[in-house]
């Protein structure tokens, strides 16, 4: 059984069918890059997996738990899958440490000392232990995104969804975030990431999914996808035509 099983998932916004039957199984420890043109449905797919959008048909399960739109199922799912956003979405009224501690205390009812210890550990892991007491607006974009990663990790998810997490960053800050992701991948974290960093995808990912017009148009190991694309759409996307 795969860790994440996505079967025939369809999603429309009004008359606009954005996902037209997606199938994808992710094994534990896999790192999957999702690439594709703007509007092809990459974000929507990730948001569906995290229950931020309701799917119209098909099924999604994570570690055997079915995605269902009620609060109890959503909570169970989100405890297993963390999400990191393009715009960081840190909580502006809390310090870096506070951001990482909040959901542990609120959702898992972890006692404050433990949550604090965990926050220190996770910030350490992303190289920001010294910024525990800094507020988001005192941090650079790269640092904010690393705090967001620490915040997701503190919930001890079995998989992470990353939606263009370096796209809002100044170019010189991209590498510090990617380095953290690379490390996570090496430690065996299951990752699903929408990215435009092709070199990174090639180096780190086990598989690449090319999305086109709401379908998983081509799936394969990075070498095959990047060096030997089969469909004209992917060739065009990669600038080979």
């Amino acid at each position: 059984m795969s860790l994440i099983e996505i079967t025939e998932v369809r999603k429309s916004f009004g008359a606009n069918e954005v996902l037209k039957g997606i199938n994808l199984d992710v094994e534990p420890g896999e790192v999957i890059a999702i690439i594709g043109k703007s509007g092809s449905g990459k974000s929507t797919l990730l948001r569906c997996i995290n229950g931020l959008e309701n799917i119209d048909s098909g099924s999604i399960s994570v570690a055997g738990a079915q995605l269902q739109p009620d609060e109890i199922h959503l909570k169970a799912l989100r405890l297993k899958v963390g999400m990191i956003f393009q715009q960081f979405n840190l909580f502006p009224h809390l310090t870096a440490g506070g951001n990482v501690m909040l959901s542990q205390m609120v959702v898992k009812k972890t006692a404050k000392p433990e949550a604090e210890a965990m926050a220190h550990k996770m910030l350490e892991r992303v190289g920001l232990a010294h910024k525990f007491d800094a507020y988001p607006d005192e941090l650079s974009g790269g640092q904010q995104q690393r705090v967001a990663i620490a915040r997701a990790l503190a919930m001890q998810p079995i998989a992470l969804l990353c939606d263009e997490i370096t796209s809002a960053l100044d170019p010189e800050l991209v590498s510090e975030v990617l380095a953290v992701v690379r490390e996570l991948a090496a430690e065996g974290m299951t990752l699903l990431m929408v990215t435009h960093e092709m070199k990174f995808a090639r180096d780190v990912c086990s598989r690449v999914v090319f999305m086109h017009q709401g379908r998983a148009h081509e799936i394969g190991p990075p070498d095959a996808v990047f060096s030997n694309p089969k469909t004209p759409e992917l060739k065009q996307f990669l600038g080979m035509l």
Partner: protein
Amino acid sequence: MKYVFDFAWLGQYWPVLLKGIGITIELIAVGAVLGVALGIFCAWARALGPGWLRPAITAYVELIRNTPFLIQLFFIFFGLPSLGLQMSELQAANLAMIVNLGAYSCEIIRAGIQATPRGQFEAGASLAMSPIQTFRYVILVPSLQRIWPALSSQIVIVMLGSAVVSQIAAEDLTFAANFIQSRTFRAFEAYFVSTAIYLLLAIALRQVLAAAGLLIFPRRMRR
């Protein structure tokens, strides 16, 4: 004009004024805390709450915002007892102020909630927080911070509006002024002094609210 101003009565009646000031402060303290609490609840219900609750909240807010406080006060104090809801003058005054501020602050706070970037809700959700938890721990404080100046002004307005509770014989500052003028026949002086006190109270209240803002929101807002 031959009128000679006479403030000699102050020597005898200052304790009366002091008591009135105390009650006015008490009224606004209770009214502000509970009124804003009610406003937070209503703002949540109207912006994010269950569908069946929203029309009821909307009706309440519109009704209060489009009728005079004096009539709300009379309705509560004179009208409600016929439903078996008897209360003292001060309780009625408190209730009227809470209900009034609740409606106004609902609209102000709702604007703050609606200005919240969508990503904040989504970040809360993706961390497995329930919608209520997300509201309580993620959305509420920055929303309040956004609208704190407007909310503060409204609280000052309600404090000044509380002068009319003297009309149901709640013994506030205006009641004290009425009492003094009926004893001394120095109406203009009595109201002049109490007006000045209200002005000072308003200035002080603004300061207190600004300080409270600094205490509750230790950080300046981003952007």
